């Protein structure tokens, strides 16, 4: 398959983004992601933003918050557990990040949203919040 340089970069960055999606609860590991994308660690963040319009950190935050939204909507698990399970080190960081991105606190969000019965990958992609920042 003949890819232009730009397409080849896109494809490698997609592999790295897929890895972030799989390991969303783990700390952001730029050296590993950069290796997947065949870039240096110093290049990775800049190229990721060129391709996807946001930094890896911002993308991972939205991915984590999207997952937290699903767990809040679909389960009655304690919010502290959801914060830890989605990679946040503290309830305070989780709550402030969630409120900034979603516009409601986790508790308010849970009260406002009922479970939905469609394939999980569509829930994930269509409920991933845009970052207002």
């Amino acid at each position, binding site marked *: *398959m003949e*890819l232009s340089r730009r397409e080849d970069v896109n494809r490698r960055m997609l592999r790295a983004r897929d890895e972030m999606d799989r390991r969303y609860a783990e700390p952001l590991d730029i050296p590993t992601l950069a290796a997947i994308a065949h870039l240096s660690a110093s290049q990775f963040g800049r190229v990721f933003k060129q391709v996807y319009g946001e930094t890896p950190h911002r993308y991972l935050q939205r991915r984590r918050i999207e997952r937290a939204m699903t767990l809040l909507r679909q389960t009655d698990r304690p919010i502290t557990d959801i914060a830890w399970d989605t990679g946040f080190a503290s309830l305070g960081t989780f709550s402030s990040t969630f409120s900034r991105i979603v516009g409601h606190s986790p508790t308010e969000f849970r009260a406002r949203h009922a479970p939905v019965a469609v394939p*999980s*990958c569509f829930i994930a992609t269509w409920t991933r919040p845009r970052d207002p920042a």
Partner: protein
Amino acid sequence: MTNNHITSLHIRAVPVLDQDEALDFYTTHLGFEVRDDIDLGFMRWLTVGVPGQDTSILLELVGGPQHDEATAAQVRELVTKGALGGVFLLSDDVHATYAALTAAGVEVTQEPVEQPYGTDFGIRDPFGNHVRISQPNAASPAEVKDAYENA
């Protein structure tokens, strides 16, 4: 509703960047059969499908004359960014399918996950298109809805 006489979903196009590579992926790894592989001169009409099922996928090369060069480049960009639509497949043994695909080195976007409706996982084709493979459980739609609401 007006009876418009539509009887089935027949062919769905998937944008690909190399038809030989697409053919290898969808037949060798996903077990599709070739329905048509016809050189029309102006295009290669290449369709594949799951054996025993009528719906086909057209493995459509991006870059035909319906797009100018700039538009074709945009579509190729979107495919390689993973931004275009995907294909949803069913398996009667999703864990065996997952094992076979991972052993073959196929890119996995998500490992098998238990859902109220069954078990599913995600992969990408060689170009970036998302393929989701699911094994439904015996739950009825109402039971799935109840499972979500009572989770």
